């Protein structure tokens, strides 16, 4: 009996110690400072730009970079609030324009002094906030499969066509950033009252409001829906990685909404200078190239995208103004959306 328990204990302990002491998890050398970067999983994960940026940064910074993950920006902000200060969050990546007011209201942030940035014109309005700087961006539209629809929709009103009944995959604006972008797009384009009337009509066309972009996109790639709300760069992923040319991003007569992803430095950062260097790296040509190629998003800085397959995709008409809605305003719009959704179901 004793031997058995001892055997199990030894096996268990060995496994446990092995996992704890894995190379990428080992405690950083005490002589090197550790820059803690809070980010969402697909940025910090092995297939995201995070690990490459980390390697690049560690080559020169005489420091270690450690990623702290949250599944999305909502969870990330909660995590930051709960343990950001105690853990020493130095950099936060992955907030979009609808998160900024909430982030500012919940945490103190450090002003960024990054000098004159040579960004694309479409990005310039997003530089207005002095606490956060965008590191990538993407225009959102509907993505379809080639040859599947008789009439490809070219405007918001076209989405009401009978051919598309229950065939559109959207994201829930309460839990997904692209979902919120769609809600904002409709309201900005049609005005609030008309926009919500339109949304009421659109409800019957929607297959589902998924909690995340990935679920909605999964429904689309599984051929459950004919359209999905996604990025204009989405077809490029399939072309590059899967060698499939089946997908296309639809041009719309209405100017498309733009999602910016921001990086910021909390006021309680422990290695603030290193954090700023990391932000600079993200905005450097090497950093921007990594982000573009791994995130399948447009870089914000000029001179990176040229002569790449991304360049032609940027020629879409986008909303000119970047509006940073207050947390209360976002909450109010979401409540109205929820009422419509609930009303439609009761």
């Amino acid at each position, binding site marked *: 009996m004793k031997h058995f328990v001892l055997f199990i204990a030894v096996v268990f302990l060995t496994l446990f110690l092995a996992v704890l002491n894995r190379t990428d998890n080992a405690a950083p050398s005490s002589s090197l400072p550790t820059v803690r970067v809070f980010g969402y*999983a697909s940025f910090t994960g092995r297939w995201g730009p995070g690990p490459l940026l980390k390697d690049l940064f560690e080559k020169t910074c005489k420091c270690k970079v450690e990623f702290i993950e949250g599944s999305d920006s909502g969870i990330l902000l909660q995590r930051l609030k709960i343990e950001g200060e105690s853990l020493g969050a130095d950099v936060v990546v992955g907030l979009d324009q609808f998160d900024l007011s909430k982030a500012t209201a919940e945490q103190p942030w450090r002003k960024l002094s990054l000098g004159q940035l040579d960004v694309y014109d479409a990005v310039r309005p997003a530089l207005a906030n002095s606490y956060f700087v965008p590191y990538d961006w993407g225009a959102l539209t509907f993505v379809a499969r080639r040859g599947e629809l008789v009439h490809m929709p070219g405007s918001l009103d076209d989405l009401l066509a009978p051919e598309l009944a229950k065939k559109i995959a959207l994201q829930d604006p309460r839990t997904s950033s692209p979902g919120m972008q769609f809600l904002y797009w409709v309201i900005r384009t049609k005005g609030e009252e008309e926009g919500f009337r339109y949304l009421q009509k659109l409800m019957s066309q929607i297959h589902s409001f998924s909690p995340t972009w990935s679920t909605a996109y999964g429904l689309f790639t599984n051929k459950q829906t004919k359209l999905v709300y996604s990025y204009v760069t989405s077809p490029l992923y399939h072309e590059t990685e899967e060698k499939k040319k089946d997908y296309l991003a639809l041009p719309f007569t209405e100017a498309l909404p733009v999602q910016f992803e921001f990086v910021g430095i909390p006021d309680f950062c422990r290695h603030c200078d290193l954090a700023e260097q990391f932000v600079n790296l993200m905005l450097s040509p090497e950093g921007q190239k990594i982000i573009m190629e791994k995130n399948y998003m447009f870089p914000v800085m000029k001179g990176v995208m040229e002569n790449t397959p991304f360049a032609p995709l940027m020629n879409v008409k986008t909303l000119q103004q970047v509006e940073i809605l207050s947390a209360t305003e976002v909450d109010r719009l979401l409540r109205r959306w929820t009422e419509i959704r609930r009303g439609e179901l009761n």
Partner: protein
Amino acid sequence: MLRIGLVLFLIFPFLFLLTQFQVTSWPDMGELIWAFKNSFLQATLSAVFSLVLGFWVALGLLALNSPRTRRLRFVLEVLCLLPNFLPPIFILLSALSVIDPFPMGIAGIVIVHSLMNFGLAAVLLASTIETKLGGIIELAYVEGSSRWRFLRQGLLPMLKKDLWLLGLFIFVICFGSFAVPLIVGGGRGTTVEVLIYEKIRLSSQWGDAVLLAFLQSVFIFSLSFIASRGKGSLHHRPANLRLLGSYSGLMVIGVLSFVYLFGYAQGFVSGLAMISTFYELQSALVWNFLGSIVLGLSVGVLCYGGLMWIAYCWPKKWFERFLNGYVAPSTSLACFCLLILGPNEGLYPFLKIPLALTVLSLNSLFRMGWDSELHALQNQMTVAYSMGASPNQIFREVLFPQLSRRAGLLAGIASIWACGDFAVSRILAHHDLSIAMMTETLMSGYRLNQAIVLSSLIVVAGFICFVICVGGSRVLSRKFAP
């Protein structure tokens, strides 16, 4: 004292959060009623369909009770239980490939829940029928009763309590289900559990979230008074079950397995074409695989210990009533509670994740037959007690040797659940610690098919943990045999 300790362990997320957040106002009634209506409707329908399908499939499994067909039956039981252990997103995407158009909303939730739970219901029902009614079925067969007559007048009335209990068990699982309503609800089927998540995630309304979770628990607790306890039996002899066995049940397993395996297989094949992307990640794969094993085994050991803890504290009326009515706290609440509690670096996720998963699954394991096992041993405990045996002696010499195997089986199931978890781990860990988390990271990009390929390792890790838990419990049972 030990009983109070266990009760406190199970309700500590509520207690802790109540000390941290004030419940200042009553939540919006319209929203609350809407969510409760959706939760109740989907859970009731899911329980009914799972039971009906499970009963049918159980008859199929009973058709394979000869020594020659044991191995085939084992394979079919694994097929039945598999959807319970795979991440819901895979079951969903597989079902979507076959059921087109897939009805999102309540109907979709019910379909996925039924697909996930029919197998569990079938395996538990088949085992209950064999152990409790094997002899009677054989007698009815010898006496020349027809199948339908025995079903109507013998089996169903005698299994009524067990069916109620099993139905309630599935109802509770579905009522508190989080991932499926969130994904399949498609915005139409917001349940209480999803509402709790939204309260925390969207507007940080922790007070509202705690109140909702409390209301949900009270509701389930009151429901548990409706269903009385079932009686278990530990010993049975092999019986001739030809009267009940039905090969049509096997056909149902075939059809339902096709629904969840076809899409999975399709995705797997597409993902294999891109397997080269995994080459550079071999080391991460190995470490995360070990991470899955560590998490799975930790949960297995904790659940084994928890079940034995319950056995040691048995019997006591109020304690039994509490365990029958108790429902695990909402997943989001339990996770955020542990996130707030203490640091989350280094060793801590390896402690917190198993702890959270144990709090969340111990109650389900109790309802999966642990209560029946304890009831079946109650007479022996009474005799031993009246003959002067101490509680320690009763536990060591009566309970432990007889219960260890069953506890190992249940702990093995919990360890498989743990291997497939990414929701709890994602909140409590700072980076990918397991294959399930790695799979979820892949899914959050465009790489769904590669995620499906990777998820096959979840099944392997789960199987290893299951075998270790079951094997370990058997060794312990033998070593402790008086």
